[in-house]
């Protein structure tokens, strides 16, 4: 049984992560900064994790504030205890 556990948005630049974190905080959206999972990107980077119910709001918020191409959304799917990530 697959079930969308949470979403992440990953960033190519650290400054973009910091800007996004500020927006999450300003809007009071539950979130956590985490290292970008290795399955998503091998090299260094940060992502922000959030809940499925905030997806539309987050997409709209990030899309309006940040330049296209420097952020990517992924859906984390838990399957038998193993988490995989699907790009959206």
């Amino acid at each position, binding site marked *: 049984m697959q079930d969308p556990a949470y979403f992440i948005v990953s960033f*190519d*630049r*650290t*400054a*973009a*992560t*910091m800007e996004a974190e500020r927006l999450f905080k300003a809007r009071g959206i539950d979130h956590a*900064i*985490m*290292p*970008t999972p*290795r399955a998503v990107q091998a*090299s*260094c*980077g*940060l992502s922000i994790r959030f809940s499925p119910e905030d997806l539309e709001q987050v997409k709209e918020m990030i899309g309006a504030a940040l330049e296209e191409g420097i952020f990517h959304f992924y859906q984390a799917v838990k399957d038998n205890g193993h988490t995989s990530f699907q790009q959206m």
Partner: protein
Amino acid sequence: MFIMAGDGDARKSGFIRMKELKDEGRRVVGTYCSYTPVELIEAAGAVQATLCAVSQDGVLEGEKTLPQNLCPMVKASYGMAASDKCPYFHFSDMVVAETTCDGKKKMLEFLSELRPTHVMQLPQGLGSDEAVNFWTNEMHRAKDAIERTLGVEITEEALHEAIRRNNEERRDMLEIYSVGQLEPCPVSIREFCEAMDGAGFAFDKGATVHRMAERAREIKEEALRNGAILTGKGVARGKSKKPRILITGCPNVGVREKILYALEDAGASIVAFDSCNGVKTMREMVAEEGDPYRAMAEKTLKANCSVMSPNPGRYVSLKEACEEFGIDGVVEIVLQFCHTYAIEAVRIGKFVREELGLPYLELTSDYSDSDQAQMATRINAFVEMML
């Protein structure tokens, strides 16, 4: 068996800890090299972060600005910083770096456009009091620059405490490295590298390293009970189950998979490093008595790096390490376009073969995947010859 920190992706979890420290108002100083006096940074109350210079991603970013025919470390250092891909650089309030090789010192001119960068002028050769005096003076200049940039004061007392604590950490590191003296060596290179990352990127580094040193002691006792022996002067060579390899040369984190892991996959056992991530930089302590600035200068100048000319200490330290760790073969890693190590490799190779009587392999590589097959072929041939 050796891993205690996190999920094996210590570099990444370190970012989060670093951000928390920044949010708490701590200052961060980025560094690259063994010549940096880490004690000064600690005494300033700042967190020291080793900046990223090991990914092919960074190389490609670096090549957007810098010429292509430069060592991958130099290109990646600048590339990760300029593209804002390295969170450690992002969170750094300043960088302290040294005029080591030509590529690095010219790259620092670009880096200083991105962050306040204090460049320490490194003497080019050793052996005279002048070099030590000059470098001692550079320690004072670095102190002033850190104080000015971070708006803090570095007291003698804090400096003495930082020296004492870092020496303790070096002794713990030596204890960890001494696991490599066991024959057979119970820790694989993969486990070892992950454990080292865990220590390197932990921000309570001293405590983490201390726990690891205790674990190393247990591993040693257990192995000795189970019939392992400790190598060292006088212990017969050539009796090992797997060829015991010492790694020397340029920093090797960027070529781990392609060279280090490949060596073990070919049947060898990497038991010692005589490069910047090895015993070489841990053996020398900073004197706890006398002038602390001179003591830091004297210690760091013993890094035995090929940027010094001549560099006699490297031969002494290599010989000692080969004896202590019962080495069967030496592998030298040269990063492409690193002139100083490439040139020195000619003499090091001769020294290892003729004076130490050991097989020697020099591998010149970069961070890309393009020469993976070629490396594997040469590594396999070298290990097979020793089996």
